[in-house]
């Protein structure tokens, strides 16, 4: 399983990010950043990223049933496309390792079931998510109408998340009908304060670009937050003295802290 595959080892070459990924549609994003924040770049260069190197981005993927959430994850994580539909039970879990500006980071994707009967448990899976991805089927209007509710539910339990609205199955539309749908979807995205993307898991169009964008925004945002405040990144439970989460760079970071200064 994927979780076995990703336990230990270096970051694969196709997960190295050195440039800031751009939005899919410049007019349909609340995130106007086009580059990493100078503070972030400097911190990475000087290798004083503290705990960010040991940090994870938690992303939850939600949306109506059978719109292709799992397919999108499988295209990105395993580069496969499965025609047969298989409903997700509860939640599927994937981890991808990245290197962003030479800092190792990981992206957790919690791919939730769209079915009604799993809605009641969703809250615990959304908890603490830094990224919320609401997906809909570009060929299925009702699934777009439901995105508002999905976004509300997910954000209620997440921690000021970065928001995305992703249309799937782009390959099934003619350019003309796509343009139609896009207009409507962009409206929704604006209302949700989310960034809009259109993808095809079958052809792979925009799938990798999308996840890279997720990672860039999440990384920039997390590191900025880390640089500005001191925030415990992990919780230790149980009864051991050995705090294995500490890295050397963290010690350095500690010394730097003290009275807050604005640079």
């Amino acid at each position: 399983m994927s979780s076995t595959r990703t336990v230990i080892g270096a970051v694969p070459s196709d997960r190295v990010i050195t440039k800031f990924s751009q939005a899919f549609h410049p007019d349909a994003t609340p995130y106007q950043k086009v580059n990493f924040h100078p503070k972030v770049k400097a911190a990475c260069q000087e290798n004083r990223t503290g705990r960010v190197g040991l940090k994870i981005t938690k992303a939850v993927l939600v949306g109506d049933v059978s719109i292709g959430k799992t397919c999108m994850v499988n295209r990105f994580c395993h580069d496969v496309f499965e025609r047969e539909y298989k409903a997700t039970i509860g939640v599927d879990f994937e981890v991808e390792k990245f290197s962003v500006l030479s800092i190792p980071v990981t992206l957790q994707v919690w791919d939730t079931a769209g079915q009604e009967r799993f809605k009641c448990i969703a809250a615990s899976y959304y908890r603490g998510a830094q990224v919320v991805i609401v997906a809909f089927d570009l060929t299925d209007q009702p699934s777009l109408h439901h995105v508002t509710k999905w976004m509300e539910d997910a954000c209620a339990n997440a921690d000021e998340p970065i928001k995305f609205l992703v249309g799937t199955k782009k390959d099934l539309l003619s350019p003309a009908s796509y343009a139609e749908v896009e207009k409507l979807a962009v409206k929704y995205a604006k209302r949700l304060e989310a960034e809009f993307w259109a993808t095809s898991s079958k052809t792979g169009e925009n799938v990798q670009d999308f996840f890279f964008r997720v990672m860039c925004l999440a990384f920039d945002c997390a590191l900025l937050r880390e640089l500005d405040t001191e925030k415990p990144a992990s919780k230790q439970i149980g009864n051991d003295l050995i705090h294995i989460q500490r890295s050397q760079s963290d010690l350095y970071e500690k010394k730097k802290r003290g009275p807050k200064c604005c640079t």
Partner: protein
Amino acid sequence: MDDPSQNQTHNHINGNGDWPHTMNQIFNEDESHFKSNAILPWDQFSNWIHCACVVTFDLELGQAMELIYPGHIKLTDKEKMNICYLSFPDSNSGCMGDTQFHFRIRQCPGKRPLSRSHSQYNKDCPVSLQLDDAHYYGFVYFRQTKDRTVRRGYFQKSVVLITKLPCVALFNQVISIIAPEYFDNGEPSLEAACHDIDQWPSPVPGDTLNLPIMGTVLQVRVPCRSDKLIGSVQSKSETLHSLPVHTVLPSLHEVDIYSAFLSILPHVQLLWELVLIGEPIVVMASSPTTTCLTVQALVNMIAPLKFCSDFRPYFTIHDSEFKEYTTKTQAPPPVILGVTNPFFAKTLQHWPHIIRIGDMGSIGGSPKLSNKVKKAAALKTLDSNPGVYTRYKSFLTKDKMILKRLMKGAQLKRPVEAQNAILRRHLLELTQSFMIPLERYMASLMPLQRNISPYKGPPKLRPFDSEKFLESVEHSGPQLTSGIKGDWESLYRRFFRSPNFEGWYHQRQREVNQKLQILHLEALSNANLSEWIADKEEVEIVDLILKIKDKLSFAMHHHHIVGKESVSRLQKQLEDIVLTLPHDLQSVIKT
């Protein structure tokens, strides 16, 4: 809108338990499940957990099994009955709110072979963490709240995880995540949690695993037999490469032994002796949470040695082994029981060693210690003060230093984690001081390398002679590594009669004989056999062929420890020898 997923889900789970329908379906599942190395759905799940159960209180039936998940898992009626009774507190002590504990039951009917993944785990994990093919653990989360809508006035229900893995710390954590979700949101949360577990990587000793569960990820390292016991837990490089997660579990299996023994700290060394020599011990307390912590701490005391008798962290009068274990017609069995029902004070009053633990509430404060060991008879007066009730005289003199250190730590409000580490280390050193002379003697029983001849059978380990061993103790015994004085010899004599010695000895014997088999196989594969058979009778050659075939089948079963080159060399040797035989005989040999 018609939900196309409805049909599809039925392939995965079917609450009615008639899953899976056909073999055909299983294979279809398999093909579409491209992400997974698992052969079948639920394979990964069953590496960790046998099933999850919900036990409720039914006014007419008493405790009743409400749900078993996944639905295709079968439990026998006896297993179900035991799980039902053990999933609820046994006494009227009024466990209001949430209570967590665990139990251990016999699997029936008796032993079933372990799965491949479990056998592999057993080969590489520390022996004290091996799962055994005859028992299940049950991890319970019990909730009792006032509820006017129920006729009895109370809501009482337990969520239980049934597993063979003795990963106490992990499963206590997991059940504390799953159960409250279940109480809030019902069955789908159990379904989702089980699906999360079905995505867990296998428990491979030495690996640091990331285990997603209900929106969070637990990180835990599975200990390995080759781990260094004293010193760093984990190498630095390994730490750096592991995935960052929300929650790091410091241990898969260790419990808070310091808190468990807090009220009886002065007797820890005496208890160590009792556990080592496999004496019957009963732990009495008012809550199952306390008994299971204490019993588990006792069993862990002699690590890395495996505790080889039965133990029941929580045992009730309804247990199917109740009669067997409480009979007065025979001496008490060498088991450790944790009980809460006051009835046991009478039933087990003839037991030689009784530990009473008071409320665990006072943890953190300076412990009130009962320094005196009380006579077991005193218990008849229903003395319920915490303490150790026994007539046993320890063989070793008490190490007062460790006690002083711990007491001082308690005064200084040293963190429980640190107190635990000190106590654990002390016990480990004690156990190792005791075992090192035995290990050394065992090594001296190995035949010499030059006695391994390809033309004879593999040499065997020489028999264990306890008197010879005890002679060696005089000059190279535990006194070399431990400052503790006392009658080590008598302690060894008692140990030799215990299941723990038997278990250790068989384990070593198996390992040594396996090693000898491998050395012999290598000798055989390197020997010049064609020269040797030149002047031999046909019957001797056939005999040699059979021996080689035997070896090759051994190599098949132990492929992970036998060198591939030796095997292929031996294979070649076999083919060459067969070719020297007459044709008719060749065909007979080949079949």
